[in-house]
């Protein structure tokens, strides 16, 4: 397989001016990241700062109703509330080792921005965050959090003013500031080596989950289910299970409103091959190769592309990718909240919804792990907007 590729997908489709910093990063991934010194420091940060291991929680009420065992990998319990902190701390530590004083990043919902700003603060690095102007307006709470953490926020006014435009602007800034700034890419996408680097830092999720389920049930799970935007939480959850051929890997893309012709965030199911943000992958695009806007009620899934390793897992058939629409995700949010007292992020709600919607395809007594990538506190405004008119029910909902 060509270096930097997963099957036909991946590569380094960037301006020549970005090749030197990508080479530098590739070298760091090969030499610094595997070193015992780096690994020891990273493990200590995950344990003492993030709060790992995150638990694998059994859902008694829902499991009884579904007829199989639903387990949640609790990335929502991490410091800053999502899986993002695993990657940003890893990259912040790498930035230190590379001798750079600052990080830049992009953010959609704001979770990667908050996690990067946090990691930068923890390791005494400067931090600048690019965020689409639309997202700045709809995620004001996270913008405030980043500002409190000392990060500089740059609202991006170009294009659709969302995540993809924030990535464009971050890439531009990186061209100019590559000597002092590391680009802390927020998901397992982008030019090589980012998809591999981010997977490296997120694979702790699947490693822990694999150990935990074996410990609790004595066997490998029937399936591991995770939502897919760029795909970092999913690749992290899947990676340790890829060699276990009996384990079904299920990625869940956002179908948006689900109406025909409406925007979605499901490039693996509804897109086609193309090049964006430095990678050959599956994209939402028109016949002229212009990138289409994406949509999801979950801002973290709102991206017209997907990490190249997912495109390969999809292409090769090792993983299955389904879709869930906004309404199904909102319903799953309520179901999990009322059944187990766990409020999932709207992104993670897509993964929960896939299990609920596909319950008849899962054997009785099976063990299913859902990666609960983040918590729903950040989504209260959106939840209330969509479900606010619903009557408040009692304990049994």
């Amino acid at each position, binding site marked *: 397989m060509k270096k930097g590729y997963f099957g036909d997908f991946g*590569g*380094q*489709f*960037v*301006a*020549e*001016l970005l*090749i*030197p910093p990508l080479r530098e990063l590739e070298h760091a991934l090969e030499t610094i990241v595997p070193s015992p010194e780096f690994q020891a420091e990273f493990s200590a940060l995950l344990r003492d700062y993030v709060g790992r291991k995150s638990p694998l929680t059994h859902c008694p009420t829902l499991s009884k109703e579904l007829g199989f065992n639903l387990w949640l990998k609790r990335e929502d319990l991490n410091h800053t509330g999502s899986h993002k902190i695993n990657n940003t701390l890893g990259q912040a530590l790498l930035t230190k080792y590379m001798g750079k004083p600052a990080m830049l990043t992009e953010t959609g919902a704001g979770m990667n921005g908050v996690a990067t700003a946090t990691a930068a603060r923890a390791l005494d690095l400067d931090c600048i965050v690019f965020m689409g102007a639309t997202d700045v307006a709809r995620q004001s709470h996270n913008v405030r959090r980043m500002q409190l953490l000392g990060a500089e926020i740059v609202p991006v006014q*170009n*294009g659709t003013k969302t995540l*993809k*435009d924030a*990535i*464009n602007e971050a*890439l*531009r800034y990186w*061209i*100019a500031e*590559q000597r002092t700034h590391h680009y802390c890419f927020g998901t397992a996408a982008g030019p090589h080596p980012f998809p591999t680097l981010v997977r490296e830092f997120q694979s702790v999720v699947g490693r822990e989950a694999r150990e935990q389920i074996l410990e609790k049930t004595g066997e490998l799970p029937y399936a591991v289910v995770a939502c897919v935007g760029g795909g970092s939480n999913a690749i992290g959850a899947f990676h340790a299970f890829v060699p276990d051929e009996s384990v079904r890997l299920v990625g869940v893309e956002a179908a948006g409103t689900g109406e025909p012709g409406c925007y979605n965030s499901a490039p693996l199911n509804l897109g086609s*091959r*193309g*090049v*964006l*943000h*430095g990678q050959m992958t599956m*994209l939402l*695009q028109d*016949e*002229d*190769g*212009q*990138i289409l806007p994406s949509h999801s009620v979950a801002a973290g899934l709102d991206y017209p592309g997907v990490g190249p390793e997912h495109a390969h897992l999809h292409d090769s058939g090792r993983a299955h990718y389904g879709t869930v629409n906004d309404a199904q995700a909102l319903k799953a949010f309520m179901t999990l909240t009322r059944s187990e007292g766990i409020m999932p992020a709207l992104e993670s709600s897509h993964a929960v919804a896939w299990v609920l919607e596909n319950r008849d395809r899962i054997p009785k007594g099976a063990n299913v792990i859902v990666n609960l990538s983040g918590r729903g506190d950040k989504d209260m405004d959106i939840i209330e907007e969509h479900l606010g008119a619903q009557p408040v029910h009692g304990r049994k909902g």
Partner: protein
Amino acid sequence: MTTSKLTERIRKANAAGRKALIPFIPGGFPDLEQFWTHLEALDAGGADIIEVGVPFSDPCADGPVVEKASIQALEAGVSLKWLLNGLKARAGRFQAELVLMGYLNPFLQYGFEKLAEDAAAAGVSGFIIPDLPLDEDAPYRAVLQGKGMALVPLVGLNTDLERMKAYAAVAKGYVYVVSVLGTTGARESFPAELADALARAREAFDLPIALGFGIKEPAQLEVFGDSIDAVIFGSALITHIRETGSAKAFMARWA
């Protein structure tokens, strides 16, 4: 290996004692009709090569002026197909050589074999694809060169000699030296290390050297002397067209 028409054209200008002039204009800017008027004005105004942009929704190596112009052209309804058809209908009418400059994805979706065929029929002499570096370009370069078209490399302040030599082994046409570590857009001055980059390019390449990014006035070029053979201007031209509605006066400055 035959010499590219692009190389010949720049050498010819140099032999006449001047730098070759390479304006850049996004296809379909500012709208589908005026674009052709401006293209003809650039041609009549003394352009040696015209870089015609193929607008893309996500031009992440471009600055705000080019991005805004590209989005405006997309909103006006431009597509690669429209551009190639329009050029084909006017094939042979331009004095200048034509180069298409655009991001990879629209070219990919058009299909590279068909692209090479249609571009050749439209009188295009070469391509510049900013998100297609050396490591990825081999299959695409082969298709374009098979139809006699050059794939022009971009190099910059942070491109070392070894890498320039690797480009030199396969490149045709001219070398596009990016004057700054940054995106497109007019600037007041150039970094001191540019002289070193130009010296490396001269050592590595047998091709003419064209300087681009940040250039708006002929006076800016005086410091470069013989270290460059051609000059590329885009953002300043776009701004001029926006302000005056004409490309003609801009070209007159350089003649």
